[in-house]
């Protein structure tokens, strides 16, 4: 096979333009001088970034999102990695059932999950709380972590752990000295992914959030519906930059493409 060929490459290029268009437009708009969504902008200025810094609701939402995303990432790993270890290493009855249960939440749309959580959390007074939002996000991040780590652990070279055992390492030492270090790339990717998934999660948050406990995506939805200025563009640009930095960091440390193969 001699490669992609000119016709296909041009077609693909056009589609790439469509994929990247919204992002490029948003970043350009972030520096717009206009008060409305006008493209191309009539001039450029960094004023919207300055405005961001003084927008209290958005900043509060940003802080909340970071807090929740961090908690969600940590908890998802703390609960998901042991489960992944058991699923990939131990043979026990009902293993496949357990595996299916862990992946089940990803089958239903977040719309349904969000509705279910709304009806469930309200009588428990968990709506509009950090705990409620974090728990809601974990319906997505926990299955992801379990799935990614199970795959990562299963792709370790064969007999590595047996070798460590024959050399005198007890089961716990094997995990500490061999399994976990080799699983480190997967762990790093999982942490970053959980954080980003929680940070960007919108639909469940819309159900579970409240007027004073809103994550950043929720606050952004409210803003887009009520105003028509490019402030969100500036915020979006900052978020895109942040996500890119995380992705590049993970790629550097780990090989993102390889980790994403899970």
């Amino acid at each position, binding site marked *: 096979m001699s490669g992609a060929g000119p016709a296909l490459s041009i077609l693909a290029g056009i589609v790439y333009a469509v994929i990247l268009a919204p992002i490029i437009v948003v970043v350009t708009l972030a520096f717009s001088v206009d008060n409305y969504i006008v493209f191309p902008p009539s001039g450029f200025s960094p004023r919207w970034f300055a405005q961001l810094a003084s927008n209290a609701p958005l900043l509060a939402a940003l802080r909340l999102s970071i807090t929740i995303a961090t908690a969600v990432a940590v908890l998802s790993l703390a609960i998901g990695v042991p489960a992944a270890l058991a699923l990939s290493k131990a043979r026990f009855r009902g293993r496949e059932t357990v595996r299916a249960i862990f992946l089940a939440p990803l089958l239903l749309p977040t719309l349904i999950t969000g509705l279910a959580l709304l009806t469930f959390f309200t009588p428990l007074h968990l709506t509009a709380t950090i705990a409620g939002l974090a728990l809601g996000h974990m319906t997505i991040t926990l299955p992801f972590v379990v799935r990614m780590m199970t795959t990562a652990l299963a792709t370790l*070279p*064969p*007999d*590595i752990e*047996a*070798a*460590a*055992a*024959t*050399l*005198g*390492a*007890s*089961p716990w*030492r*094997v995990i500490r*000295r*061999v399994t976990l*270090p*080799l699983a480190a790339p997967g762990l790093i990717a999982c942490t970053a992914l959980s954080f980003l998934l929680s940070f960007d999660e919108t639909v469940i948050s819309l159900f579970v959030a409240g007027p004073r406990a809103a994550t950043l995506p929720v606050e952004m939805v409210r803003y887009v519906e009520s105003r028509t200025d490019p402030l969100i563009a500036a915020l979006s640009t900052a978020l895109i930059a942040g996500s890119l930095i995380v992705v590049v960091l993970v790629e550097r440390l780990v090989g993102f493409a390889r980790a994403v193969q899970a």
Partner: protein
Amino acid sequence: MSYLELSALTKRYRETVAVDRASLTVEQGESVALLGPSGCGKTTTLRMLAGLVAPDEGSVSVAGVDVTRLPAHRRNMGYVFQSYALFPHLNVLRNIGFGLEERGFKRAEVRRRVDEALTLVRLGGLEQRRPRELSGGQQQRVALARALVILPSVLLLDESLSNLDAKLRDTMRQEIRSIQRKLGITTLMVTHDQVEALVMCDRVAVMNAGRILQVGTPVEIYESPGTRFVAGFVGRANWLAAKRSESGRVSVWGTELPIDAPRGQHLELFVRPQRIRLVAVSEPTGGDVARLTGRIARSVFVGDYVETVVQGADGELTVETPSGQPSLHDGSEVAAVWRVGDMRVFARDTT
């Protein structure tokens, strides 16, 4: 009492019996091979010995101590895996030193012993390399050094030469054998390669379908195979359909041969191609030989030897003669002659 004793080890997986009451004794310093085709249970036996697989029945003892219930990490056995199983995230030094670190040796002492081991396997100077930077042969030596440096009671080798190319395999066979002799370490190796077993070991245990069929020195296994399987598995063989003659002897191609027929239905005569001489039909032969006549069907020059196929009344006989001898014409009548002691008769309903 032997140094290493496997007693009626049995392992079942669902319906199949992978290992069926395997028993074996190994003396201290001895090198024994578990030889058999793939799937015969030899690797499973080795893993039970190492504690990586729990046997359903049977026991393992080392120097008189029953270790059957002991977990793998307390058995102090050096295991060299077929895939080498080197730790990809550690360099050669830390790979080899892994077991020493588990035993609590200090860094300087670890370094000293690892250097010794590297010298032993002739890999000095590569301590800082990672496994992926090493060739197959180098990885194998690292795996061996790693297993030996912990001064194990037993060395276990699992098909460890099968991933190497032919030339390297030859070299490594000699090296491992000389290291094993030099250290006097009790060794059990699993292989499907009979040359490996015969060359590297003091004794060979032939396995098939989970059972150990025969244990003996390489010469015993080759010259005196106890079962049909062993006869056919080690070395090359001729198999001729045979009948029981009226006087209780074996009859092949209508000719009665000077060997008694055992009990059993379908008899087969076994004789190795290299033990057969071809002579003119008119030439007389002594009484202590078997003799069959036939015609030469074809002759093939295979470099070191010539392979001749003799067509008889009821089958074919393959003969190997060293090259350089006068050749015989296709179609000419010839007598195939061999010593009585070089043949055996097996009944087909036994293994």
